[in-house]
């Protein structure tokens, strides 16, 4: 069960014991406030020696996945040392989940013309 559907379960008023049991079974999201948004997954496609979209805004805790569709490796490497994917081979992906708010500029260490920004709110 996804965190979103767990929220649905609670919304429809199932007894809390059932919810707790479900949480135990499926890993649960009890620490996430029911009113807050569930973590989302954002995708950055690497294709044609570019990050697409080049600028992305996410919330702390969201996952960002870079997918390399070029026939050669790339990296997603922040200029401030926040993250470094190292080589993402063709057809492979790499995920980073930022925990802290702030603006992160990043690039590909192999191809200096590639630039992207990740704004974490």
């Amino acid at each position, binding site marked *: 069960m996804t965190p979103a559907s767990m929220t649905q379960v609670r919304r429809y008023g199932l007894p809390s014991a059932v919810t707790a049991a479900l949480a135990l079974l499926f890993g649960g999201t009890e620490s996430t406030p029911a009113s807050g948004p569930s973590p989302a997954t954002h995708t950055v496609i690497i294709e*044609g020696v*570019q990050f697409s979209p080049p600028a992305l805004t996410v919330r702390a805790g969201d996952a960002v996945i870079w997918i390399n569709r*070029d026939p*050669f*490796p790339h990296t997603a490497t922040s200029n401030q040392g926040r993250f470094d994917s190292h080589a993402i081979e*063709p057809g492979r992906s790499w995920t980073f989940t930022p925990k802290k708010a702030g603006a992160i500029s990043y690039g590909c260490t192999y191809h200096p*013309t590639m630039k992207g920004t990740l704004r974490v709110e």
Partner: protein
Amino acid sequence: MKRIGIPVLASLLLTASAAAAQPNDAQIAAIVVTANQVDIDAGKLAASVSHNVDVKSFAERMVTDHTGVNKSAVDLVTKLKVTPEDNPTAQSLKAGGDQNLRNLKGLKRVAFDKAYVTHEVAYHQQVLDAMDQVLIPNAQNRPAFVAHLEHAKKIEASLAGKR
């Protein structure tokens, strides 16, 4: 600086392209594979000879990237059941590549670096021009050549003051 090879490559490519009719898919496949192979060969030489860290890593990148592009090109033509067909444009690319290698092998250190990088700028520009004018406008791999061209120009500028 000696610039043997670049004008020859350029003129041969354009002459051959202009003289020939629009190449067919089999001929385009041969041109693409040859164009990549020529840059792989130059990159291997530069990666082993150059002492400049930027030139060396650029050369290694050219080997990796053009090998990847060639693999995807070969996968595509295999899937489409196209057999690459040799043609004057592919032959002139190969001849230009061989001439570049001969020229580079006679050079050392900064002279080598400059000649290699200058040829890389000309080569990537040439392939882009050929893609746009003759071969395949909107070619899937065009952005890679643009990125390599800009990268090569940056290194060329950084080498400009060196002796």
